[in-house]
């Protein structure tokens, strides 16, 4: 356990919204090993983004956070802003969904990358600029010297996301969190960016956390998959185990996410397996399993008691009273 790069233990985040408590993350634990890729999958509101923002120290002061998140043994939660800034960028970095909004529209992209380098390292302006152009090359931006002097609006969505990745990589972090980083991009651009991320991971020996709602992305690019629902981890397993032939999916929720991904093999007008209902209200979570109201095989005990997330097979954890057999394939 000591060789884990990031170790998150019983992380919990609550917000007070309009006089009610919203439990965004409710007791989440996972580890990320150096150089590996972890995918955190869930619908909107499942707490996957809040979870990673808490690790990055990016949540507003109104959030109540408990638990621990240790990066190479040093605690990240509860750090002062100055200490966080040291970690952010040099140890962990984050790429967001919306590259258009994450970049300053009034500054040339080169200046923004140079700034990012200078905040973390004591280097001269000239040196920082050289490194910035190298970073642009690193993220395979053609004609890097020319792009260096352009403004964000002159770049396409994919190029902007490359610039964001360049900024995130400015200090060679050990962990990169990509929060829906390819969701707003076209499929062809998404494939390019994902491939770039994996190549950079190899080159720089980084660990990667992919936050996404897309099971396909997790299956194609992750080593380990964590499925979140209503603030909790409901299933965790190596990708090969979860998606491989004779898949070992145990949670009906994971199965449903997998089935809902459009398949090219299915004939036209094929009726999709459907899960009714919608995620529970985060201000009033049910006492039992939070997926029980939508689950086809829910029984009385599911409504009464919440199942714990236990390691039932090596590397495979799930939280279900009645796990499905044969991967739940219909």
């Amino acid at each position, binding site marked *: 356990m000591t060789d884990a790069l990031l170790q998150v233990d019983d992380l*919990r985040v609550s917000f007070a919204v309009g*006089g009610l*408590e919203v439990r965004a993350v409710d007791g989440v634990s996972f580890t990320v090993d150096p150089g590996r890729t972890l995918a955190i999958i869930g619908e909107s509101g499942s707490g996957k983004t809040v979870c990673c923002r808490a690790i990055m120290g990016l949540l507003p002061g109104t959030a109540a956070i408990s638990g621990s998140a240790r990066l190479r043994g040093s605690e990240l939660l509860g750090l002062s802003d100055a200490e966080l800034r040291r970690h952010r960028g040099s140890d962990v970095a984050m790429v967001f969904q919306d590259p258009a909004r994450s970049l300053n529209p009034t500054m040339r992209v080169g200046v923004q990358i140079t700034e990012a380098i200078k905040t973390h390292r004591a280097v001269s302006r000239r040196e920082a600029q050289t490194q910035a152009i190298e970073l642009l090359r690193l993220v395979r931006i053609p004609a890097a010297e020319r792009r260096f002097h352009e403004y964000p609006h002159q770049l396409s969505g994919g190029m902007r996301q490359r610039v964001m990745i360049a900024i995130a990589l400015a200090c060679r972090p050990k962990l990169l969190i990509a929060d829906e980083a390819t969701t707003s991009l076209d499929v062809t651009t998404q494939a390019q960016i994902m491939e770039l991320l994996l190549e950079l991971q190899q080159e720089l020996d980084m660990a990667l956390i992919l936050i996404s709602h897309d099971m396909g992305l997790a299956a194609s690019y992750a080593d380990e998959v964590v499925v979140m629902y209503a603030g909790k981890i409901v299933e965790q397993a190596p990708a090969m185990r979860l998606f491989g032939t004779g898949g070992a999916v*145990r949670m009906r929720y994971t199965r449903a996410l997998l089935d809902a991904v459009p398949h090219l093999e299915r004939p036209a007008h094929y009726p999709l397996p459907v899960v009714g209902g919608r995620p529970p209200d985060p201000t009033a979570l049910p006492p039992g399993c939070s997926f029980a109201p939508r689950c086809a095989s829910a029984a009385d005990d599911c409504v009464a008691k*919440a199942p*714990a997330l*236990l390691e039932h*097979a090596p590397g495979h954890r799930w939280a279900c009273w009645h796990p499905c057999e044969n991967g739940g394939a219909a």
Partner: protein
Amino acid sequence: MAVPTPDVTLATRVPPPLPSLVNSRRLRTQRLGRALRLWVPAGFLILMLAMCFLWPLVYNLPSSVNGNIIYSSEPPFSPGHWLGTNTLGVDIFSQIVYGGQIAFEVSVSVTVIGIVVGGGIGIIAGYFGGWIDAVLSRILDVLIAFPALVLALVIAEGLGPSEMHVILALSVFAIPALGRVVRGATLTLRALPFMTAARLAGTRGWRIIVRHIVPNILPGIVTFSLLGIGIVIILEGALDFLGYGIPLPEASWGSMIAQGQQVLTAQPEYVLIPSIFLLVTVVALNMLGDALRERWGVQ
């Protein structure tokens, strides 16, 4: 694949529900603060309106115009004159009440005229666009370019001071202000998908304006108007102060300040009392506007 799932351990390992991370006092404080932000200014304004318009109907107030020189310059908390009297012996509380009536009458009328005329122009300009927008926008520009106070002075000078003329003069200021706000809001709204959806669903012309545009811009206009009412009260005070507003001897907050200013060092309360009423009323209007904006989520 054989997965060891010992049912016994499962049954015994039900985790207790995790305790709340947010303490309940903070949640209560949040709810209370939200309620107070709305009801403190609203309550104060209701009290002010009741004082100005209901009080004189229920109780017999001393005249706000004529005073008895025998009772002149009485200090606050004197019997029968709890805010005292001025140098002419006129009851200050009566002046505040009747001055307040005028302040509210003028500011509300001006704002209503502004909403109806300015808002109408703004909606038509914003919705129909093209040359209609160009013409109406230029008219609003011309009006906004007029210095409102100077125009009010000219109207008062030419037509003679009266409440009606004050309303007229200040409307010239309110109409373009509201007109531009409404036009902007309509333009933003027109580009939204639900407007396209309404048009494609077959709804047309005036029905779109009445049923889609007006309800959507109304919250914004109401909050903006509350700020507007405050500004108009100040402008009305300024006109009175300059002697071009409500004709003497009728009481108004502005003229009270103007008269009190002559004896400012000897009797600062003549200036202070109307100023405080003016200030607190305007602040309450602004606070109410902000609280409503928060509730309705208006930008």
